[in-house]
């Protein structure tokens, strides 16, 4: 069996200077979980779909202790669906596939979902906490409205994690030296059965908002920015710790911070 980490190599600059390229904090967390979750005897494989430069990120990953690295030769602008199809064909049969929840280049976070569909395995996406047990993992997923979902993962699955979930280990010096000569398997990318045919620059749709209330400009600015409301809400009370905690939770609920 194998455990896979999917890493997207991104140049986060308008001038395309690839010296500043790298993988996101979320992908680094994914790599760390891949290394942590592998059982004895299992291979840990990193996959990156991208241009030649991506091999640098793969070598850094190899230095952290991977068994193997694969680069799928694919145009960096390929759709999430095409990336998922290519990765799925390279890692079929994997027990766990770890991804970051979003890539650095304003990703939509859709690739892991596509990947689970192509591999025909389960998915647990947008994770904010992961506890690895012997036979299963307990994971916490972020939902809208500050809600959480706790799940147990037992079978093969694609998991996507947020950047704060784990800190990637520092590669050993021996690892770094050896990774320089590591062989990176390169395979050709696949086209996807579903693909975007027309790509336009990202322009969020305009939304109509109600005009702010108030007669003076200052009042309207206050109502737009909520300025001053926080201080009006403040209140000093002296309570025992349990009562104080209950009061805080109640206030947060009233103000809409808790579901």
């Amino acid at each position: 069996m194998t455990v896979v980490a999917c890493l997207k190599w991104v140049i986060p600059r308008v001038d395309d200077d690839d010296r500043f390229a790298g993988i996101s904090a979320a992908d680094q967390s994914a790599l760390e979980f891949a290394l942590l979750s592998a059982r004895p005897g299992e291979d840990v494989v990193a996959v990156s779909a991208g241009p030649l430069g991506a091999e640098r990120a793969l070598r850094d990953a190899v230095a952290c202790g991977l068994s193997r690295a694969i680069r799928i030769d694919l145009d960096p602008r390929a759709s999430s669906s095409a990336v998922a199809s290519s990765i799925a064909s390279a890692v079929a049969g994997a027990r766990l596939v770890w991804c970051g929840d979003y890539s650095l280049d304003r990703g939509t976070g859709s690739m892991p979902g596509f990947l689970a569909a192509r591999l025909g395995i389960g998915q647990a996406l947008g994770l904010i906490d992961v506890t690895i047990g012997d036979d299963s993992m307990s994971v916490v997923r972020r939902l809208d409205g500050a809600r959480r979902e706790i799940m147990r993962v037992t079978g093969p699955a694609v998991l996507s994690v947020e950047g704060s979930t784990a800190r990637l280990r520092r590669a050993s010096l021996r690892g770094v030296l050896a990774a320089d000569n590591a062989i990176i398997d390169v395979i050709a990318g696949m086209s996807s059965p579903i693909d975007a045919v027309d790509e336009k620059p990202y322009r969020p749709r305009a939304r109509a908002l109600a005009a702010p209330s108030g007669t003076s400009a200052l009042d309207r600015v206050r109502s737009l920015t909520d300025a001053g409301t926080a201080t009006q809400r403040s209140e000093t009370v002296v309570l025992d710790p349990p009562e104080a905690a209950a009061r805080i939770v109640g206030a947060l609920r009233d103000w809409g911070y808790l579901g």
Partner: protein
Amino acid sequence: MNRPDANDADVIVVGAGPAGSCAAIAAARAGRRVILIERGPFPGSKNMYGGVVYPRILDELVPRWWETAPVQRWVVRRSTMILSETGALSVDYRSNAWGQPPYNGATAYRPDFDEWLSRQAVAAGAQLVTSTTVTGLLRDASGRVVGVRTDRPDGDLTASVVIACDGVNSFLAKEAGLYSATDPSNFTLGVKETLALPKHVIDERFGVRDDQGVDIEILGGTSGVNGGGFVYTNLDTIALGVVLKLPKLAAQKKRPEEIIATLKAHPAIAPLIEGAEVKEYSAHVIPEAGYSMMPTMVTDGMVVAGDAAALCLAAGIWLEGVNFAMASGMCAGEAAAAAVARNDVSAKGLAPYTDKLNATFVLRDHKKLRKVPGLVLSDRVQQRYPAFVTSVVERVFRVDNPQPKPGLRRIVRQERKRAGIKLSELIRDGWTGLRGFG
């Protein structure tokens, strides 16, 4: 002593600045196994300087370097400017020959230049390890340096020779006991702003076109803190900075950014940079005292090169360090490779490194100019001469009709007295200068 082939490398070079990359190129070309360790994510990412390199020393290491080196502009105009509070006297030289191969000086960004140079080292066979900081030396029972410790797990590496190219204030050279006590008055603080302007505006203001560039060194204009300044042109930015004597800066309680702001407002400088946007502010220490602060260059198993060995020439009209770093690095790499081949990496076996430095411009220039940094940074040259010189020139060129033109000798005498300079001091400084610049 470790068996040489049991070591991780023949030569470990610490720091992939100009000194380190050239050391690595030279040692790798000689067939040695070389590991080049850099703390930044890529070579040059952490490095700053004023902005002009004189790469002719690369003729040996990277033939036709000018075809691939990441140059901003080729320097075809060099000016030395003496600033009083409101006046400026410039000596300006232009040579279009400097804009043709093999060129003279070039402006370049360090992240580009250092990274390019490190690629030459990798092409020569050196192994480059980035994002790794050397934290100490490994020594054997006899005290000989046998490798380095890094900040990575499992991070010790052994080698026959360590070449310390870790820049100014080298803690490796200090750890090896090559420096005597550190004296802050041997150092200056260099601060620089990178100012963005459209290329055509820079071309017009500095009287250049295409890839031609300008190098202006400044004496005075540092708000009474002993030091100097510089203005260099890149393609679409200007590097403007000051170099300040550390003890004076501390004593006068002035902030370097205020001194730069005052220089930028000087009537001779302001029009050059008007409308420019500050892109970057950076600062770095310079081993200004040159020859008088140099360490012992070799010890058993280790040599030191570049700024780490204080091989930076900061002598008024010259601010050169990169070329000295490249040359000393090259000599260190060659000497280390030869010592490994002879299987004698003791201080004696590595001594040809010092001989090479002595035989080339590296130590010869430093020896010849050893009195110049002290002279240039002296209170008289800094505080009184700029006002004296500019007021002499002002009076020579001022037309005060109907008064007849005054004689030059009289003006000099009057202005010298007004500036509080004794004739004996002027003669002494002139003589030191003549001998120094000789």
